[in-house]
């Protein structure tokens, strides 16, 4: 349940932001989940809903909106761009699991599919981001 730790960071960041903005209730929290992190959405949502209880300001039930962001990887050597899903099938479970914990180890376990370079960049879809929050003042 590594998802729990990430969910906790979302809830704490949302509460922090809402406090700054003097919101009395948080009505919507939109979370962008980068494909590379391969989050189990059900577990993540369960964790978010458990953690939302007893927060101040309160977070309304069903406030969490989850959006997945497709990954884009760009090679610095040859300019190729590709998606993690295109190469995931070729990865063994251990390497894929490692990328789930630390997305940057994609540079360790994979290479540019066109030129074989390890020098590429995660341009989109890395991990979990708090996209926006809405609430009532």
């Amino acid at each position, binding site marked *: 349940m590594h998802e729990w*730790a990430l969910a906790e960071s979302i809830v704490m960041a949302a509460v922090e932001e809402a406090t700054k903005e003097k919101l009395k209730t948080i009505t919507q929290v939109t979370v962008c989940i980068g494909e590379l992190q391969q989050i189990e959405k059900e577990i993540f949502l369960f964790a978010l809903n458990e953690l939302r209880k007893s927060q101040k300001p309160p977070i309304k039930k069903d406030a969490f909106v989850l959006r997945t962001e497709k990954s884009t990887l760009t090679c610095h050597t040859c300019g190729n761009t590709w998606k993690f899903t295109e190469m995931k099938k070729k990865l063994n479970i251990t390497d894929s699991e490692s990328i789930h914990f630390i997305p940057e180890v994609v540079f360790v376990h994979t290479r540019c599919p066109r030129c074989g370079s390890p020098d590429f960049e*995660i341009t989109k879809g890395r991990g979990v981001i708090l996209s926006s929050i809405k609430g009532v003042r």
Partner: protein
Amino acid sequence: MEPRTSVIEKRLKNIHRIIAVASGKGGVGKSMVASHLALHLAKQGHRVGILDLDLYGPSCHIILGVKHQFPTEEKGIIPPVIHGISFMSIVYFTEEKPSPFRGIDISNIILELLAITQWGHLDFLIIDMPPGIGDETLDVIRYMKNSEFLVVTTPSKVALGAVRKLLSILIELKKPLLGVVENMTMSDSAFIEQEVQRLQVKYLGKIHFDHTLEESIGNPDLLLKTQVMKDLGRALTTIQL
């Protein structure tokens, strides 16, 4: 918005002291000092953790003989306890493959490790820092506000040149400095001691070059008996840990 920074304080709140073992220069024995320090404190009955932040070339796992281990998943990841030390390293996720990370990746990895690692209650968390004053050092200063620095140098003027820069920036940033330990000494020269004192930093002492150290690597029971351990223990008596 980056959410991980919001949870770091909570993850570290039950850690009494954080000691970053650092140097401006590579190859001065930071990992060796960090590993010995952790073993020394664990032997005294303290609850100790190690976070190896040398992401390109982690080596604490080699020194401490950590093999075939992986963190447990429980509301994050719980580091395995090895020889009484909660041990966290990128090596669980990279194995022994090369790690071609750029600066932004380094910061992301550190944030991720700090956000998901559940250390629990520790008396000491020892951080094995990479050389220099790059992303890792700046991130430790930024995210681990209570960290104290133990700086390692060798007797070489070359090492001291880079170490002096690290000390200057730590002094400028008003970071707590435990002092400087002089590692791998082969003479009684007072050069490093005088230079360190000139910066008004505490000189902790010498760790003599140990010809037999290599034979103890990977075996904590042997590491506890090395000359390095004896000298480090003596150096640590000059500060309150």
